[in-house]
């Protein structure tokens, strides 16, 4: 299924000077050097997007987009050989499935986000249509970015399901479902949806949760404000196009002034037209911000991984007490439920969690110790990954801001040029 001659935008280890237009440059900088992540062994890219038609779950005809994932072994690339890449097609929903799997399976990892499902923060001229070619293209870039981030993550990159996603087109979905991650997801996600107070919450996690809220709030504010600004700026530029027309009409009744006016009018038209490219370019900046808006959500999930807290606390107390009567378990669960609003959901989640606890207690103390250790490890791993995320975020966003400034400068230079040209024409009037 190899496809030849496709346009590839790949971040390899060697290209460390990439600008972070799609975050790939910064990726290389924040990649962990120890261990061999998948990205070191394999070149990955999302080369193309195509429209397909087919029947959906309710047997209705629908149109959707598929994306071509190409992979090549890194050693081949490094040695200068250029074998045809392996390729397979995936649609957005499959990426979503992969991500959900990763979230459930690695609850202590800040899992990279996918590009948005539907166009949001759209300023009026930009299409909100999912089939719009510009949207599809930006999504392609976003999906590639997602794969590159996952494949370069010290923990996530080793996942087998990820590897199959990239290499096995058929049957991948079945393999994922077979892991039974969804069962874990149900109870976990429900429990996660409620935040309940634990007696000694880990302060670090509280701070992280608070920060994730801040990050989410600020990035979404920024995106909304930017869209409004873009809208208004569009208006300013476009109105100048009217000068083009009126100067042209006016030049018709003038003798000496005619030529100068006419030419100036053309420059006004050019000025009005220039805003389209300017704002199109700015969408890349918006996409970078969006990535971190969604990242904030992922961070929040990790910081809210309370069941682990409960687990670890209850496990700790069980280990300390050397026994945990049914009564105490029930009292503990009552205590927590009474503090929360969504009692039903919480009750179900807690009960399930506690049922699990019961089962594990029954299995004996060794299991208890094992599970406690696992939970403690989880907490530490979460902390490590949150730190990794923080560094990556600082680097990426700083680069994004620099690029934004570069874009602004480019816009100013264009403006100076156009008005300079118009001025030349006016002087010749």
């Amino acid at each position, binding site marked *: 299924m190899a496809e030849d001659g496709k346009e590839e935008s790949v971040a390899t280890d060697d290209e460390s000077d990439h600008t972070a237009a799609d975050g790939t440059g910064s990726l290389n900088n924040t990649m962990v050097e120890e261990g061999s992540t998948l990205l070191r062994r394999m070149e990955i890219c999302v080369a193309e997007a195509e429209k397909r038609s087919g029947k959906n779950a309710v047997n209705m005809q629908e149109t959707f987009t598929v994306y071509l994932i190409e992979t090549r072994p890194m050693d081949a690339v490094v040695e200068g050989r250029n074998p045809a890449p392996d390729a397979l097609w995936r649609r957005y929903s499959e990426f979503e499935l992969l991500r959900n799997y990763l979230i459930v399976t690695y609850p202590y990892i800040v899992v990279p986000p996918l590009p948005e499902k539907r166009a949001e923060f759209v300023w009026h001229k930009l299409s909100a249509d999912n089939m719009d070619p510009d949207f599809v293209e930006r999504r392609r870039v976003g999906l590639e970015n997602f794969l590159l981030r996952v494949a370069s993550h010290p923990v996530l990159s080793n996942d087998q399901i990820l590897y199959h996603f990239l290499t096995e087109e058929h049957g991948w979905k079945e393999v994922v479902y077979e892991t039974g991650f969804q069962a874990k997801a149900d109870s976990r996600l429900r429990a996660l949806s409620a935040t309940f107070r634990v007696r000694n919450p880990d302060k670090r996690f509280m701070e992280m949760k608070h*920060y994730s809220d*801040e*990050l989410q709030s*600020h*990035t979404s*504010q*920024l995106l909304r*404000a*930017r869209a*409004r*600004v873009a*809208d*208004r*700026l569009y*208006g*300013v530029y476009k*109105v*100048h196009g*009217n*000068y083009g027309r*009126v100067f042209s*009409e*006016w030049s018709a*009744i003038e003798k*000496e*002034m005619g030529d100068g006016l006419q030419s*100036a009018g053309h420059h006004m038209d050019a000025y009005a037209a220039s805003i389209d490219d300017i704002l199109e370019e700015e969408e890349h900046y918006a996409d970078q911000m969006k990535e971190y808006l969604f990242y904030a959500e992922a961070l929040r999930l990790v910081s809210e991984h309370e069941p682990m807290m409960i687990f670890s606390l209850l496990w700790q107390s069980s280990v300390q007490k050397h026994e945990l009567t049914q009564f105490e378990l029930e009292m503990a669960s009552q205590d927590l439920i009474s503090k929360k609003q969504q009692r039903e959901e919480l009750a179900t989640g807690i009960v399930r969690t506690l049922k699990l606890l019961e089962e594990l207690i029954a299995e004996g103390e060794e299991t208890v110790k094992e599970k406690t250790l696992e939970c403690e490890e989880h907490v530490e791993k979460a902390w490590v990954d949150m730190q990794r995320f923080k560094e990556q975020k*600082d680097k990426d*966003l*700083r680069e994004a*801001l*620099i690029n*934004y*400034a*570069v874009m*602004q*400068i480019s816009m*100013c*230079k264009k*403006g*100076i040029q156009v*008005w*300079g040209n*118009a*001025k030349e024409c*006016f*002087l010749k*009037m």
Partner: protein
Amino acid sequence: MSVGAPKGLASSGQKPITEILHPLSAAEEPLSVTVNVGGDKEAGLTNGTPVETSSPASASSLFNRLQLDDDLEADVRDLYASTETRDLFVTVDDPKKHVSTMETYITYRVSTKTTRIEFDLPEYCVRRRYQDFDWLRIKLEDSQPTHLIPPLPEKFVMKGVVDRFSEEFVETRMKALDKFLKRVADHPVLSFNPHLNAFLSAKDLNKRQGLALLTKVGESVKHVAGGYKLRARPAEFCAMGEYLDTFSQKLGTIDRIAQRILKEQSEYLTELREYGTVYSSWATSEEELQRPLEGVASCVKTCCGALEDQSESMSQDFLPVLREYVLYIESMKNVLRKRDQTQAEYEGRLEAAILRKQEDRTPMPVEVEKCQDKVECFNADLKADWERWQSNKRQDFKQLLTGMADRNINHYEKCQAAWESLITLLQDKQTEDKTSETN
């Protein structure tokens, strides 16, 4: 960026007139003018150096520079620097508020320098208010009906809407008055009008004086009976009329576009300010990113300021000139109408005379011949005025539109500088981090 008048209305900087540079003499370029003033030629007109004042009528006093408080008006330079003889220079500046029990009003200083013998002194400095300018305009229209009188800025302003004493309004009006007076002074016929003389020199402009000074330059066209119908307007005057109609229309369109742009810019500015604050507030929850985010917020703020300046400038300098030209076009149209009336009268009288002649062989009455003269004079004056008007229009618009381009360039330059300094700041920090990355 205000041009001309000082900001404070309360007091005017009192400079002796000899120290004040004349706007018509360029600071940078030498005037390519030779002056014949009663044989007293001043050699060595140097470039930018003030010349000693000797005798009142000498050419040196001519080139004494009168300086406006801020900068020299480049428009004046372009407009009036020609190879024609210049011996009358006027300036309007220094607005001052007068408060009396009856009313509050603004007066302007009108400064004159001249070598003409029609004036008793070489220099004058008087204070005039809008009413006085209006008086002059009416007098000129009455006494020089065949000539195009430049327009004045709007007389009435809606009291609730516009602040008649705001700096911006006064400054805009003052510039228009200055332009009006300069156009009159520049005109080869109007500038010799005795009313202008009175306006420039009389200590107290007793407006009733006008009647005594009125010389019979020509019959007021107002007295022409309205009954005459014009037969055939010469093609060139038709063309002028059409041109004026279209031109007026286009100027109206440009005015609307400019206003629309200002409106869009204002709304953009509102959003941009909000946008800047988002970065500032985000900065408070960040550590490493605090400085970059605050840097962006600061850049956005600078851009807001730059745009505000540009908008204000367009509003104050661009739009008023545009509107004044529409008035100017109306004045020109009026003159064309008067010309038509004159021609109609002539044709009417001629027709009547011919009929009478056929009846009783009376010779062509003198009035008819006088009418014919009038028409021919009017046509000649009008053509000359038209050429001058066209030439001035070209200069005025060249300057107006170039000014608009400059303002936009200036705005972008300010923004670019702000963003460039941010990048320097951020990239310095980056290299700083990289070198200290040993942890």
